[in-house]
């Protein structure tokens, strides 16, 4: 903006305008995010329950969590879930996106893959309850009849409940990740792959040495958002299993919810939530660091 003398008297007025324009969102940020965040930190250091007890207890809530079997189960389950769902989602979505790139009828396929993304997670959980049912669910019936497999009773088996939730998450998430991959693929200049083709690179070589490096910012972005998202998994576990059987599908967020709104132990819940926050913070910082090291940007 040119600094003409005519604009100068506006400067003071601009201070007011600036704050007024930022105002509504700033109030939201202070009242509904920053305030509660500080409150949550304080809460994690207090005994605060439904009985009306409110007193400072230092790190007792954290000690209590670290001694609690449920907390470790939640951490383990969430880690296991993330370990399965993130690579699964990235690989499947990339395969679909690669197949979809430059194919006839792309719009129709894209539509079908995206349908589960739009559907309410609660409603589709209800549908999958039946699909995955051990006795009269269609999935197990076909596994038995067509493949001769003796299938597990997914949602009731402690060893299979997390893979089952992973399966539903993949079904729900692939469409979204695939759309982002497609956008990434489409931004790769055709010139590059064509040049590699002329130089005699096989399609696998073209994928490995041209497409994949050009796609690395997208892959990193999706990996990080996908990890962060999977650490916050709740809806499916809540509706399909209520964290069960036992604690086999208790996730971190389910644990936080359960402590606060079933057990009414707000202090302990805030402590568990704080651990989740630290994990997400570390993951986000790791993203920034990884971005500098490995990602190829086409500048």
């Amino acid at each position, binding site marked *: *903006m040119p600094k003409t003398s*005519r604009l100068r008297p506006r400067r003071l007025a*601009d201070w007011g*305008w600036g*704050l007024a*324009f930022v105002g509504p*969102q*700033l109030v*939201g*940020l202070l009242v*509904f*995010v*920053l*305030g*509660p*965040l500080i409150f949550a930190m304080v*809460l994690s250091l207090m005994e605060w329950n439904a009985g009306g007890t409110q007193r400072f207890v230092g790190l007792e809530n954290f000690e209590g969590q670290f001694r609690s079997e449920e907390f470790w189960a939640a951490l383990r389950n969430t880690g296991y879930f993330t370990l399965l769902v993130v690579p699964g989602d990235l690989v499947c979505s990339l395969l*679909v996106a690669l*197949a979809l790139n430059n*194919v006839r009828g792309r719009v129709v*396929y894209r*539509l079908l*893959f*995206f*349908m*589960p993304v*739009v*559907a*309410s*997670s*609660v*409603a589709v*959980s*209800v*549908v999958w*309850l*039946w699909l995955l*049912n051990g006795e*009269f669910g*269609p999935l197990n*019936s*076909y596994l038995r*009849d067509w493949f001769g497999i003796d299938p597990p009773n997914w949602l009731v088996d402690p060893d299979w409940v997390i893979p089952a939730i992973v399966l539903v998450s993949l*079904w729900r998430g692939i469409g979204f990740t695939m*759309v*982002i991959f*497609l956008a990434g693929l489409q931004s790769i200049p055709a010139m590059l792959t064509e040049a590699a083709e002329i130089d005699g690179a096989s399609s696998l070589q073209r994928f490995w040495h041209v497409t994949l490096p050009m796609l690395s910012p997208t892959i990193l972005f999706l990996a990080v958002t996908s990890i*962060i998202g999977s650490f*916050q998994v*709740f*809806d499916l576990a809540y509706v399909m299993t209520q964290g069960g059987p036992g604690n086999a599908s208790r996730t971190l*967020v389910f644990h*936080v*919810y359960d402590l606060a*709104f079933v057990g009414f132990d*707000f202090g302990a819940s*805030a402590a568990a*939530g704080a651990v*989740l*926050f630290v994990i997400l913070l570390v993951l986000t910082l790791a993203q920034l660091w990884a971005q500098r090291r490995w990602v190829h940007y086409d500048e």
Partner: protein
Amino acid sequence: MTPRSDKAVGSAAKHLFLGGAALLMLLPFVWMVLSAFKDFSQVFVVPPQWIPDPMHPSNFVDAWEALPFGRAYINSVYITVTIVVVQLLTCAMAAYAFARIRFPFRGGLFVLFLATLMVPTQLTIIPLYLVMREIGWLDTHWSIIVPSALFNAFGVFMLRQFIRGLPTSLEEAATIDGASRWKTFWLIVFPLLRAPMSALGIFSFMIQWNNFFGPLIFLSTPEKFTVPVLVAQFKGQHTTDFPLMMAAAALAVIPPLIVFLLLQRYIIEGVALTGLKR
């Protein structure tokens, strides 16, 4: 093999793979709709029977009447629309200020907005619950509308980046003609934000419509429930009646799916543009 037939085989393989995968995506919906017409006794048929015989359409009526579904739809629609509209306006205003107006602490405040992207709602919802209880907003729609309507850090960030990419000449001309900041924003900048705002609005709409965690915690009267909470409540009451649950799920899934089919191009492209998960 000639390159051309090689390509044809490749294309056929692609369609085979994509068709199979797309079918897997679609089948749960087909199962949901067809099974909603089943009688309870047909649940136990093995191997599963896809087409119900006889048809049993009363599940839809039973599901609709068992819980206030109509009410839940009205609640979901007006809550979601209010949140998205207010969010878009306030985000655009904040984005304009961050992009164009010089005011004290601008840089610091902007960093603060970015930093809050990392704060998980699951952590802040506990104190928020206690605050809502204190001010009497528990079990009211205020508790769901206000926090979401007044805060979307990603929206502020995205629109600010967009505004910074716009040429300033029009705004300068308006300023020289004596237009106030508000007029400049409302008449010149705001209309230019249609593309990013529709992407953001669609994205926000999807998130808010399917939002379950907040309403689950803040609402307790069935008449005030949004659609997802109502379905969860329904599931709790009718766990064993699978066909009835399919009807309830279908009632929750199909109307938004129709809207999606009608607007699919804008929705998918909007998502590709904003690309932030959940």
